[in-house]
């Protein structure tokens, strides 16, 4: 039998890989993809516990997370395209106009 903890461990590993992607990569596109990976890991935990307690509410919450992720990606990539038009780069270290 596969215990719920196995799913939680898998999602923790995926979450750590996502954190490494956010901190190690320099392209804003790659940072975005890593954030999506982290959202997926959190979703997997929610679905695993929904299955353990036989509750449908967590799955509804995952549905909302997917909705918000779609909206976030649309707006974020639109902003990225605007920044690229102005600065000709997706390097996050160069996006420091607001820095004090």
């Amino acid at each position: 039998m596969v215990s719920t903890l196995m799913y939680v461990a898998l999602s923790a590993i995926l979450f750590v890989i996502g954190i490494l992607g956010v901190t190690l990569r320099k392209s804003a596109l790659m940072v975005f993809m890593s954030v999506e990976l982290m959202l997926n890991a959190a979703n997997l935990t929610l679905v695993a516990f929904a299955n353990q307690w036989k509750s449908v509410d967590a799955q509804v919450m995952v549905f909302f997370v997917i909705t918000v992720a779609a909206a976030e990606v649309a707006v974020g990539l639109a902003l990225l395209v605007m920044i690229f038009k102005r600065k000709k780069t997706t390097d996050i270290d160069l996006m420091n106009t607001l820095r004090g």
Partner: protein
Amino acid sequence: MDVLLFGIPAVVAIIGAIAMLLSRNAVHSALYLLLNFAAISVLYLLLQAPFLFATQLIVYAGAIIVLFLFVVMLLGAERDEDTPHANPWQNRGAIVGGVLLLVELCLLYVYNPGTIPVAVDMDNAFAAPAEIAKALFTTHLLPFEIASFVLLTALIGVVVLHQRRS
């Protein structure tokens, strides 16, 4: 059999994530991310979430990955990170932090050996799409409406961002 059904998608998901992290080309990264999303959707099916399986494939593997690929190819930003980080300690700090998180996970696993089994029982359809619709349109009706508003706001925001200034 259960372990095999769980293990193959889990290994594929981890391989996809690591390949996404290590790939130098952003197009390859997006495709490895697609592999990861597909493997996770198989795990949703194992966890008796057929509705989320379909949603994951349509929204993540369909819409979001296509959007990523479209933007990467539009910008021509496949290889845009030849220079190192501005902060020289960032890479080392990231790896140390990742290893610490994994050690913490192992400690959790050692001190809390969970033996709660997941019943793979497809007849017990507690999360059939009809049940999810019932929950969505009764208990969670207000968040559902707010979600539609969020999507509308994102749509208008993107259009406003990209209109031509005359």
